């Protein structure tokens, strides 16, 4: 079976079958939807900055941005990358990050009730599938590192 991602020089070739591509795109949009709605599954996208509760409270008072809005935008734009036959290494790095965001949210969705009509079983299946894709993409990306 052909790997979903493979390295060719400074590019990564995407060899996803059409259904795999569709599922991946839908997953990214679904996770963007959950995060945009402030769903409890999205808490891992915005972890605390400090291990000291006092410093963390100070940060909260300052009202620092959580960054979730930026992630939602990136997920919505990122699904378009899957239509490309090849990606640059920078784009591939971004795709790996987005797939990881999806896994972070889907891991929570396996044990909680979603606002996006996502059943725990379906979340688990997506989580495992995206783990497979991410592993393949990391192998392609890491082949250029020592």
């Amino acid at each position: 079976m052909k790997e979903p991602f493979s390295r060719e020089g400074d590019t990564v070739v995407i060899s996803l079958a059409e259904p795999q591509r569709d599922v991946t795109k839908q997953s990214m949009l679904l996770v963007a939807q959950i995060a945009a709605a402030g769903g409890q599954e999205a808490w891992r996208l915005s972890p605390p900055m400090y291990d000291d509760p006092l410093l963390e409270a100070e940060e909260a008072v300052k009202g620092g941005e959580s960054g979730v809005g930026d992630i939602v935008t990136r997920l919505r734009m990122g699904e378009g990358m899957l239509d490309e036959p090849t990606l640059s290494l920078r784009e591939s790095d971004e795709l790996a990050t987005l797939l990881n965001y999806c896994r972070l949210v889907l891991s929570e969705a396996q044990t909680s009730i979603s606002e996006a009509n996502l059943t725990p079983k379906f979340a688990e299946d997506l989580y495992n599938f995206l783990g497979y894709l991410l592993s393949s993409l990391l192998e392609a990306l890491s082949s250029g590192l020592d």
Partner: protein
Amino acid sequence: MTILWDDPVNLIPYVIYVLQTLFAFSKVKATELTMQVHRDGKAIVAAGAREDMENNVASLHRYGLWATVGRA
């Protein structure tokens, strides 16, 4: 210091890749730190001025890793 915490979601190869990419660690060093996180629950991946540590943590968060700024 910059503390990287273990979590059950991030794949080990992903953590190694991020440490190599962000900190320019060798594969050996990135792997050692990742396995320390996996084994001990956390590892110190950098030490220095608070502002630098905050930047490190923000970068690790951008990759979806769980990191915090800790007291030296």
